[in-house]
Every structure is written in C-alpha cells, then in structure tokens.
C-alpha cells in the first residue's frame, strides 16, 4: 500500500509550468500561421529540383521534399490552412449546434426529440466515415471541407448545450423572468446562453484539437485540402512514400501537428478545470 508522503505544495508549480508552456506554444504557432507570408524563408511552392530530398540543415531546418520545396515553409503554411479550416469548422459547428441545443433543451417536446434523433444520426457514424461519405458525394473543395467538418461535429455541442439549457430553465431567475412577461427568446439570450457560456468555451477549446486531427486524416487520405495547398495532412501524405529514404518530409509536419494538438488539449483541460469541472469525459 503506498505510504502517505509528507504533503508538499510543489505539484501546483509543475502544473503552472505546463499551462504556461502550452499556451505559449499555441500562441507561437498561431502567430506563425498568421504571419506566414512574412516569416517563411522560402515560398511554400518554390521548387528547386537540384535541392530535392535534402536532410535537415541550416538552410532547410526541416529538409526538402522530392521537388526541392522547403518543408519548414510548407509546414508553416500548413499551419495556416489547417488552423483556418479547424477554427472555421469549430465555430460553425459550435454556434449552430450550440444554438440548436439550447433551443431544444429550453422548449423540450417534439422539436427536442427530433433534434436528438438527428444528433443520434451523426453519432451513429464515426466522424471519419461520415466525412468521407459527404466529401465523396459533394466533392473536395475547401468550402465543402469546412462544411463537412462542421456536419461531422455539431451534435456534440447540441447535446451538451441542451443539457445545460435543461438544467438552467428551471432556475428561479428564469421563472421570475417568465412571470414578468419576458419572451422565450429574451430568456434564452439573457439568461440561458450567458450561464452556459463557460461550458461552451470548454467544449470549443477541446474541440479544436479533434477537428485538426480529423482534417489531417481527410487530407492525408486525399479527400481534404487539395494540392498544391499544403495542410499538415497532405504534407504527411507526401512524405509517406519516402519514409525510408527521407523521413523528415512526413515526420516534421507530424511533430508540429502533434505539438499543436497537445498544446490545445492541455489548454482545454486547464480551461475545463477552471470553468466546468463536472463536464464528463464522454462528450
């Protein structure tokens, strides 16, 4: 049986360092994505066939690919696209799903049940397969990609926001509002939504990592971002056939992808601890 050690306070410090590192990393990557055109050493599509398949060096910290393109520059541009797509999809899925969820939870009844059945539809298919099916049917373009990623993701927001609305609508201040004649819309906007905002923010932060991974998977399989646009997924796909000869083509974008999601998840966990600790792991 583990013996109790003398309790100390140092474990709090370790956690603080983690958060600071995670947020800093996130900020750096986002800044790099935003400032991409100004900071990249080479253009993402600049080819230089004489420099193809070069390992990492001072000139090319991440090496070059089969067409002599600089992997570091492509990775930074990849961040630009991957993050853009992810943020858009999360925003759309979050607001649409969230609003639907609040309305459903608040009113209950038939519309609530219907919404939940549609949510079940999304849950009945793994996100990847649903996304593949939709992209395969609609055609792979950037817009379609964002739409598809939202469609594969909204139900999670609906479910959680719905249960928030369910518990909030019985609060005293809501009843008082009704008695003083406030319309349902007013109540939802003024009382329900603000109080559910904490949970919403937690969901959004945790969701970004999930969507980044989903987009990377689709792009890797050729059904996400289309060449020549670089996304982390397509970069990894590019490097796949050179895995034994030029591992850096796939691995460096992979590492950056992983670090980004890692930072995002750590930040999300921290936000959850602060805002909504009871949010279950199921969603």
């Amino acid at each position, binding site marked *: *049986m*583990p013996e109790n050690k003398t309790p100390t306070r140092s*474990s709090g410090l370790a956690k603080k360092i983690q958060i600071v590192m995670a947020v800093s990393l996130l900020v750096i990557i986002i800044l790099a994505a935003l400032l991409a055109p100004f900071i990249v050493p080479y253009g993402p599509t600049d080819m230089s066939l004489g420099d193809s398949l070069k390992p990492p060096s001072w000139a090319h910290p991440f090496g070059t690919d089969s067409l002599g393109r600089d992997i570091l520059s492509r990775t930074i541009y990849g961040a630009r696209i991957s993050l853009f797509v992810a943020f858009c999809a999360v925003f759309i899925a979050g607001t649409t799903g969230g609003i639907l969820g609040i309305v459903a939870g608040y009113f209950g009844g038939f519309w609530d049940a219907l919404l*939940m*059945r*549609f949510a*079940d*539809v999304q*849950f*009945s*298919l*793994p*996100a*990847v*397969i*649903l996304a*593949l*099916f*939709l*992209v*395969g*049917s*609609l055609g792979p373009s950037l817009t379609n990609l964002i739409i598809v990623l939202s469609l594969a993701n909204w139900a999670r927001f609906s479910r959680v926001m719905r249960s928030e609305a369910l518990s909030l609508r019985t609060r005293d201040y809501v009843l008082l509002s009704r008695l003083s004649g406030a319309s349902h819309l007013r109540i939802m906007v003024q009382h329900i939504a603000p109080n559910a905002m904490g949970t919403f923010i937690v969901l959004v932060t945790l969701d970004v*990592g999930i969507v980044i*991974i989903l987009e*990377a*998977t689709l792009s*890797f*399989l*050729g*059904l996400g971002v289309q060449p020549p646009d670089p996304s982390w*997924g397509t970069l*990894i796909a590019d490097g*796949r056939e050179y*895995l*034994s000869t030029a*591992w850096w083509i*796939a*691995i460096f974008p*992979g590492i950056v*992808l*992983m*670090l980004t*999601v*890692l930072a995002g*998840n*750590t930040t999300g966990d921290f936000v959850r601890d602060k805002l909504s600790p009871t949010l279950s*792991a*199921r969603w």
Partner: protein
Amino acid sequence: MFNYALRRVAQSLITIFIVIVLIFVIVRIVGDPTHIMLAPEATEADRQVLREILGLDKPLLVQFMRFLGDMLSGNFGMSYAFNQPAMTVVLDRVPETALLTFSALALATVIGIPLGVISAVYRDTWIDVVGKLFAVVGQSAPPFLFGLVFILLFSVKLGWLPTGGFEGPETLIMPALALGWYSAAGIMRLTRSSMSEVLESEYIKMAKVKGIPYHVVITKHALKNACLPVITFMGLQLGVLLGGAVSIEAVFAWPGLGSVILNSIAGLDYTVVQAAVTLIAIAFTVINLIVDLLYSMIDPRIQYA
C-alpha cells in the same frame, strides 16, 4: 426497465430511418449515375433507357419506396468495380476490419485499465507522470501518424516487423497498436479519474477499516465500482476505432472495409460506399442501444421509470 427499453428501441428505429432517408437524398445529390455506368461513348438515348430500367425517371417518392424495399431485402445495387452485389463486397471485408478494430480495442483495454488503476493508486508519483504522458501523447496525434512512426522505427530502422499487408500476427501488431493508442489514452484517463473518485469514497475506507488486504480492496472493491463508466466508454470507442481504421488500413495496406470505402470513393463506385455507410450506421445504432440497455442492467441501483 421495460418501458425504458421500449423507448430506446423506438428512438433507434427513428434514427435508422432518418439515416436511410439522408443517404437516399445525398446519393441523389451526387448526380446521375448513368454517366458513370455506361461507357463515355453512350448516347443520351442510351442513358435514358438505363434511367428507365433503374427507375430514375419515376417520382422521388416512388424511387424512395423502391430504395427502401431494396434495402430491406439486402439489395444495394451492383458494384461496378467488383462486378458483385455491393453488399457482398462490403460484407466480404468486414472480418478483416473487425479483426483490426477488436484487436485495437483489446489492446487499448489491456493497456489502458491497468495503467489507469496504477496511476490512480500511485497518484502524483513518477508512475502517474508516465501514465499521464502516455495518455496525453495518445490523444494528440492522428492514428496514421503513429502508424508511420511505428513503420519508420520498427520496420525501416530496426527491421523487426513487416511494413504492412495481411499475413500472420506480425502484420497485426503495429496497426492495432497505432489504432488503439488513442482509445487506450481515453480508457486510461477515465479509469484513473473514476478510480481516484472511488478510492476516496466512504465504502473503500470501510473496506480498509475491515482489515481487508489492500490489493483486494483495489481489485475487488474499488475496481468493480470504478469500471462502470469505463464500460460504456469502451462501447463508444468502437466508433472511434472504426474511423481510425480507415487511415490505418491505408497506411498498412490492410485489406479491410476502410480501404474498400476509400477506393470506391476514388473510383466513383457509389453503391459500395452507400452499402458500407448504411451498414455501419445501422450497426452502430444497434451497438449504442445494446450498450445503454446493458448499462442499466449492471448497476442494481438504476431503476429507469
């Protein structure tokens, strides 16, 4: 209990119905299949004949009824690429993907639960740190990336394992591990938090007060209470794993359902895609239903009105 079961079954049926309708609608959006089915030299008149044969000129509702009827009898049309009924193609590949998916789930459970228990019991020690690191890494990357790293490490650099294919257990190890890491991470975290909560409970204190040996307290008393939420979680993981299986099958050249879906999309063989998606959606709705019903049976305290 019975009422609850009835309600859940009704919900599942409605969900399945909506799925079928949506699939029907989306397939219509894709467009006129006659362009693909006939050779490019075919004339518009030929296509019109084919449309009549397929019933594509009839009103939408009639088409839907026909679609529904076909589906209920298992007819999902013919696969152009394989020249077989689409559903046959799909069902043929199910065993390989099932093997991969369940192996991944088994590995995830066998690694995740003990790791979670140990992390909870030795909370905030270096053991816990290692466990948390394992979990955090597993949830930060897509499975295909793990697959590529494993190939690089174990096939290319060390030469221990083959790079892919489907022959014998050596070809299953890396795909299953790469696929399962994400789920193992989730299982580990859930076990850890569930176990930590249970360990702080009064009845565990009581078990210690009774003088029951500590390892029995952990395995018998605490674990049984702690693993209830983990079981439902595992049921949900099947969906995640199937999704990941698609890219893992691509990376490791594993001949399963995932790769056939991909190839069919690329080859515009939509009947196969349709059959696969329908099968998966129905299968998962049923699995979720079973998991929910099972859960309410395991816990003797739950009485669903």
